[in-house]
C-alpha cells in the first residue's frame, strides 16, 4: 500500500487529523479532521472550540468532523450549534463534512445525525455539505443560494429526508450525491421519492449525480435512462449498489448517457456480455468490484 492510497480528500484538500494542543496551519491544501475516541473524556463542542481558538479562524475554509465520541447515542446538535454561533467569525468557511467515521468507530447506520437547518441558515456562503449517517437526520425544506455540493452517505436514506429535499432549492448545485441504501437500514421510500427529490434539486449546472449504495439501483438506472437532462452530466455514479443486467440494459439503450465522462457502476451484478457492451458504448464506464449473486441475493456495499 502506498501513501497515496491512504490519503483522504475533502473539498479538494488533503485531510489531516487535528491534534489538540497544536496550532493548525492555514495551508490552503489541508483540511483538518476533528475526532474523538469513543472513550474520550471531552466533547466535540469543546474540541471544536479549542480548534477554532488555536488558529486563525477567519481564514478557515473547510472542516471535517469525525467521530464525536458516542455518535451512536448522541447527535451532532451541540457542536453544530457551536459552529453556527461562531459563523460571524468564520467568513471564509465554505465546506463541512460531518460524520467521517469508519466502521470501527461507528457503524454507519448507528450514526446519530441531527437537524442541519440552523447550520444552513448560519452559513449562507457554504458551498459543500457532506453528511454521513441518516439516522435522526433532519434536513428541513431549505433554500440555500450558495450550496454547490450536497452529499448524504448512509446505509438507508429515510423517506422524510427525500421529501424534505423535494421541497428544497439549491440553485447553485453542481454535485448531488445520495446514498439510498437498503430497507433493512432505513431506506423506507421508493423510486418515486428519489425521483421527486432529484427532479427538484437538479439544476442546469448539475454535473455530478451520485445515487449510490442503492438496493433499487436497477430502477434508478431505468428511470435515469429516460431522462434527457442526464446529457448535461459529466459523472453519473451508481456505484456501491446492486445494479444488474436490467439496469445495464436501460443504460445501454439510453440516447442521453453516451457522452458521460464517467459512469461508475462499481460493485455491480452485471453479466460479462453486458459489461463488454457497456465498455464499447460508454468509454467512461467503470465496472470494478464485480459481485456474485442471484437477483434475490444482492446486497449493497454499505449497509450494516
Amino acid at each position: 500500500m502506498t501513501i497515496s492510497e491512504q490519503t483522504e480528500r475533502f473539498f479538494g484538500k488533503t485531510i489531516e487529523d487535528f491534534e489538540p494542543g497544536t496550532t493548525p496551519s492555514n495551508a490552503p491544501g489541508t483540511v483538518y479532521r476533528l475526532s474523538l475516541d469513543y472513550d474520550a473524556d471531552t466533547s466535540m463542542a469543546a474540541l471544536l472550540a479549542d480548534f477554532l481558538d488555536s488558529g486563525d479562524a477567519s481564514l478557515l475554509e473547510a472542516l471535517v468532523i469525525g467521530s464525536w465520541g458516542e455518535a451512536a447515542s448522541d447527535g451532532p446538535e451541540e457542536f453544530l450549534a457551536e459552529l453556527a454561533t461562531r459563523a460571524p467569525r468564520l467568513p471564509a468557511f465554505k465546506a463541512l463534512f460531518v460524520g467521517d467515521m469508519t466502521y470501527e468507530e461507528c457503524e454507519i447506520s448507528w450514526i446519530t445525525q441531527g437537524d442541519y437547518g440552523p447550520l444552513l441558515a448560519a452559513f449562507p456562503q457554504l458551498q459543500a455539505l457532506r453528511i454521513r449517517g441518516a439516522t435522526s437526520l433532519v434536513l428541513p425544506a431549505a433554500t440555500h443560494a450558495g450550496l454547490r455540493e450536497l452529499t448524504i452517505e448512509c446505509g438507508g436514506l429515510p423517506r422524510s429526508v427525500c421529501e424534505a429535499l423535494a421541497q428544497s432549492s439549491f440553485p447553485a448545485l453542481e454535485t448531488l450525491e445520495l446514498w439510498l441504501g437498503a430497507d433493512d437500514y432505513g431506506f423506507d421510500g421508493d423510486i418515486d421519492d428519489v425521483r421527486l427529490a432529484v427532479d427538484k434539486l437538479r439544476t442546469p449546472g448539475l454535473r455530478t449525480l451520485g445515487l449510490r449504495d442503492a438496493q433499487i439501483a436497477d430502477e434508478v438506472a431505468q428511470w435515469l435512462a429516460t431522462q434527457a437532462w442526464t446529457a448535461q452530466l459529466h459523472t453519473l455514479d451508481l456505484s456501491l449498489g446492486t445494479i444488474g443486467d436490467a439496469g445495464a440494459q436501460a443504460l445501454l439503450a439510453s440516447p442521453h448517457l453516451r457522452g458521460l465522462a464517467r459512469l461508475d457502476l462499481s460493485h455491480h451484478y452485471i453479466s460479462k456480455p453486458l459489461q463488454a457492451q457497456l465498455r464499447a458504448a460508454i468509454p467512461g464506464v467503470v465496472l470494478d468490484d464485480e459481485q456474485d449473486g442471484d437477483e434475490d441475493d444482492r446486497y449493497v456495499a454499505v449497509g450494516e
Partner: protein
Amino acid sequence: MTATSPSASSPAARRGGPASPFVVLGVAASKRLRGLQAARAALGLPPARLVPWRDWLADPACLDAALAPDVRVKIEPPGDDVEVHARLLHAGAHLLDRPARAPLQHGELCATDVWFAGFEQALARLAAQLAPFDVVNDPAEIALMTDKWRCQQHLAAHGLPTPTLLGRIGGFDELEALLRRHRLERVFVKARHGSSAAGVVAFRRNARGDLQATTSAHLVEGLDTPRLFNDKRIRSYTAPREIARVIDLVAAQDAYVEAWVPKPRCGAGHFDLRVLALDGEPAHRVARVGLRPMTNLHLDSRRADPAALLRAEELALMEDAARRAAAAFPRSRVIGFDLVVKGRRAHVLEANAFGDLLPGLLWQGRDAYVAQAGVAAPLAEPAP
C-alpha cells in the same frame, strides 16, 4: 553432528549456533517448515530435522533420537494436522474429565479449552524432555502465551499497557451483566485459547438497543446443535438471538472480555502492528490495515510499512513496548506481539509464541526465518 566449536564456553555456543544441528517439532508440508528450510538452505546450513508432532505424540522417545548435545530445538504449532488435533483433544478431555467427543469438522471452532489442556500437557512433557537442550521458545512460556487470559495478566503484571481485562464470561447473559457493571457499550470477547482471530468477537451496542457482533466465527444452525466455524470472511451479526448464540458458543469454550482499544486510523480503516521480537529485540514489523475490527493478515487486511504510518516517537514507543513485552518472556527468542500505538500509548493486544509466520516480510534485508536462523550466534562459522 556433535562437532565442538572453538568457543564452546561462550553463551552463544552453549545455546547452539546457527551451524548446530537443528530439530523442529512441527508438521510436514506446512508453510512454517517450508519457510524454515528455505532459510537454512539460503544460509548454506543443513536442513532442519523434522520430528512430526504426530510421531512425537505416538512415541515421545522418537525425539530423543534426534537430540545431540549442541542441538537447537524449535517447537512449531501442531497446526492443521487432523490426527494431532484429535489426539490433543482426546488427551484434554481425559484431563478435564470431559466426555470424549467426535472429531471436529473442518474449521469448526469448538472445545479450544479442551484442546489447550491437551496441548499444555504436551508442552509440560516437552519441557521435561528438552530441559538439557537449547530450545528456541521455552515450552512453559509457549503455554503461557497460548493462554491469552493468563498471558494478558502476565504482561500487565510486568507493567505493559494492555487492554483492560474485564473478566471471564460463561455466556451472553454474563456479558450483558458485565457491560452493565462497567457501563460499557463495546468490548472484545475472546476465546481464551483461540489462535489469531479464532473465537474473537467485537461486540457493541447502542442506546437505541441495537446490538452488533463482528467476528470470523460463522454460526451454522440446523445441524444437530448450533456450531461455529472459522472463516476468512468477517461477518456481522445484528439479530440478538444469533448474537447470544455466538457468544454462548464462544464462552462455552472459556472466554474473557477486554476493553476495545481504539486503533489509529488509516484511510477508511484502522491499523494495528505485528512486531516480531527476536532475542528480545524488535525486528520484523508490519502494520495491518483493515476495514473491520480484526486486522489479522489472513482476514483481508493489507500490509503497510509502520514507518509510513507512525511518527518517529510512535515508532520508538512501538519498539520499546515490544522490547519490554519480550523481556516478560525471557526464555523465548521468537515472539510476535500485536500492538496498538495511538497517541502516547502502546497497548499490547496479544503475544504469540508462533508469531513468526510472516512470509515475504523483510527486516534489514532478511525474512523472519533467515533472521532467526542467524540470531544468538555469529554467522562466520560455516556449516561443518
